[in-house]
């Protein structure tokens, strides 16, 4: 597996991963913009409307037909949050040329279709088609509203929104419902022009083709981007201290099981030297099935159906998420904190340390075996301006000492507790 990173033009980059492991090749193109309350919904809506039709393929049916001709390839809107950067664009998967029925090439026409989606939208009167805009705005609003359906994830979104209310990270990747409601075709068109002119652009390929061929295939995308103006530089999210007394938020919905989500400040993120130690501590604490939260809070005490922790790699935040009976929430919270205290005082066995290390290393190495995870990994790194591959990060995790892990644990401070309970 060979990874090549090339700057094609100032602010326009390509990450090309060459490998013959997969049956498919993966293509991506994303605009990277700072995550803001004012623009998040607009940016999120851009790829959704672009995906409705191009100048050459003006509707979904003809776009799908074009994709079917490319062996059922996909090109789906992407809206992701990497730290405090919003990434919007397209990502898709196509059959690798080796497996086509008549040996025909797929990469070049697929990249051409990607360029079409990104650069040559179907327009009416010089802007987005009002019908498409209205419909996709409706879909965006529905998606934002539907976040409440998955209560486990909803609790996590809510704790982040409460905890980081004064930081860009508190903005959801889809933006807010209120902001989405204000969008019309003209406003959206202006935002699209802004992205075209000034957003950083990240292109991605993973498949059997050599980087030179990939670069040539992407030429229609690169050539179609405006040359004037300067593309925005990347910003590293600021760190913040937890309040002296943790914030507490409770909400009621019609649920039979409570959801407890706890947000911690980590004082470290992917840019920091201690990040591998933090990743290891997260695994010891709640990131695996050998973790303290899983073995104690869930298995030994049966306080929760699930209890796990997760890191926001590009922001100084760790979340603990659990499902708990309403009347056991106090007990569960106490136990979750007491398990953290054990990590902070070095009260974990060498076995626990090594199990956690094996799990983190294995997760990183298997990223190399899964095209979509690899794409997401490299997009995150690109949005952060980092170049370390998953195998290199794994090698650093191998070197973390017990003392470093304990030190990373001692930096974890509870910031916000969110509890979703049933109606009285």
């Amino acid at each position, binding site marked *: 597996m060979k990874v090549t990173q090339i700057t094609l033009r100032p602010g326009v980059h390509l990450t090309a991963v060459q490998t013959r492991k997969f049956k498919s090749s993966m293509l991506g193109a994303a605009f990277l913009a700072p995550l803001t309350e004012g623009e998040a919904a607009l940016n999120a809506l851009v790829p959704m409307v672009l995906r409705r039709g191009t100048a050459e393929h003006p509707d979904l049916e003809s776009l799908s*037909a074009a994709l079917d001709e490319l062996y059922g390839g996909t090109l789906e809107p992407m809206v992701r949050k990497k730290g405090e950067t919003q990434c919007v664009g397209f990502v898709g998967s196509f059959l690798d040329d080796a497996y086509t029925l008549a040996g025909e090439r797929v990469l070049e026409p697929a990249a051409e279709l990607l360029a079409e989606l990104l650069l040559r939208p179907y327009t009416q009167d010089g802007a987005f088609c009002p019908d498409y805009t209205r419909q996709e705005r409706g879909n965006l609003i529905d998606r934002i509203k539907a976040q409440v359906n998955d209560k486990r994830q909803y609790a996590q979104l809510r704790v982040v929104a409460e905890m980081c209310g004064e930081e860009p990270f508190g903005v959801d990747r889809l933006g807010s419902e209120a902001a989405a409601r204000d969008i019309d075709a003209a406003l959206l068109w202006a935002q699209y022009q802004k992205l075209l002119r000034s957003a950083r652009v990240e292109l991605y390929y993973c498949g059997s083709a050599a980087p030179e061929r990939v670069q040539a295939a992407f030429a229609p995308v690169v050539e179609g981007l405006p040359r004037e103006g300067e593309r925005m530089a990347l910003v590293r999210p600021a760190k913040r201290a937890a309040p002296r007394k943790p914030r507490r938020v409770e909400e009621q919905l019609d649920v039979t099981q409570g959801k407890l989500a706890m947000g911690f400040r980590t004082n470290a993120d992917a840019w920091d030297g201690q990040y591998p130690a933090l990743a290891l501590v997260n695994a010891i604490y709640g990131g695996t099935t050998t973790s303290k939260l899983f073995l104690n809070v869930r298995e030994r005490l*049966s306080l929760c159906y699930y209890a796990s922790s997760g890191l926001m790699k590009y922001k100084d935040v760790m979340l603990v998420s659990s499902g708990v009976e309403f009347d056991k929430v106090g007990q569960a919270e106490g136990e979750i904190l007491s398990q953290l205290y054990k990590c902070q005082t070095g009260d974990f066995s060498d076995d626990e340390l090594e199990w956690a290390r094996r*799990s983190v290393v*294995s997760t990183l190495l298997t990223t190399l075996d899964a095209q979509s995870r690899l794409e997401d990994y490299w997009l995150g790194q690109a949005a952060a301006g980092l170049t370390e591959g998953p195998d290199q990060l794994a090698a650093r995790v191998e070197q973390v000492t017990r003392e470093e892990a304990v030190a990373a644990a001692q930096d974890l401070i509870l910031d916000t507790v969110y509890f979703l309970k049933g109606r009285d």
Partner: protein
Amino acid sequence: MVSKQYPRLGETVFHEILENGLHVYVDRRRDFQKSYAFFATNYGGMDMRFRLEGAWKNTPAGVAHFLEHKMFDTQDGNALQDLAANGASPNAFTSSAITGYFFESTEKFFDNLRILLSFVSIPWFTPESVDKEQGIIGQEIRMVEDDPENQVFYALMECLYDHHPIRVPIAGTQQSIARITAGTLYACHKAFYNPANMVLTVAGDVDPAQVCAVAREILPGQSGQPIDRDYGGEEALEAAQGEKELTMEVSTPIFQLGFKCDPAGTGAEWLRRSLTGELACEVLLGSSSPLYARLYGEGLINKNFGYGFELYPGCALLAAGGESRDPRKVRDAVLAEGERLAREGVDPALFGRVKKGCYGAKVRGLNSFEHVCIELAQAHFAGVEYFTFPETFDAITPSDVEECIRSWVTPRRCGLAVVRPGEER
């Protein structure tokens, strides 16, 4: 050991039948960090009534799933921890038809394989551990009861089926699992977890001969008795009821629309039916069909719309669902499109594209070791080699697909389940 090449897919599969009746399949994949092993029994949520040693037994709903949870317990502790300690990511699932245990690991593959084969084949249940699990699974059932997607799926099953056990939730209910004892678990383990009723599938850069050697070392040498199952007799071809509605706290109505299809036999027929059903889905309401574009354009469906063809022993269905302001309109439009296709036939250009698209998606699916191992196992239980799908696929004609749509997509075979927004249940 037989090795078989599938040049169209660029794959080689090693196959061996052990003395105890277990089939072992290894899809050798070079250059991958991870390896994947899947050990499955032909026993799922719907196998509630069966004949063991001559006598018919009725078991409560949820035993297969309960067993899956309890199998990880060993006399010395918990296999989940043993596997995780070796850096493996273990898990298990219970579907209506099968129960599968698997792990993925980047190191110590054969140590992990020993653990997997050993904990799945050696039961260890105590009344205390069964009691405790009732609490954990009870919580899981309650969580699922809060999940509208799940509720709407079972509502559809109740619409379509009169008595086939596919309509019973796999995890059971609070009441049914309360009736499960250590004795129930031992009896069901004995009946269904015998090597001849199981399959081991592996994908990764591992030596197939060593996989078989480890299986011989760990598993019992003898096979158990064949098992008869009873799904309550043949179902009528019509849906049991046309509609079912629930109320939950959701933002927009969620629906599942289903058509009861003819069940398929085993072997080549199973694979062919499953591929034909998939193509019928794509032609009728797939993302490149005219109906999909119309429904999407009218705002009746959104990106969450999903569809598929499902084949189980004794039943089959074509289902589609997602969010919609007006699920009945979606149903009526699908029925009308089915009638049109039955009358006018399938557009040959559309058929050609959809076939190419499905083919590409199927080949791309082989990237996932989990997918490959599960498909190899399910195809084995159905009596067919999964990797023969390209040839089977080639042979399907537009009239095969039209015939399916003509007989399945009709009002009599149709069920619609809807979860509507609201606070009361």
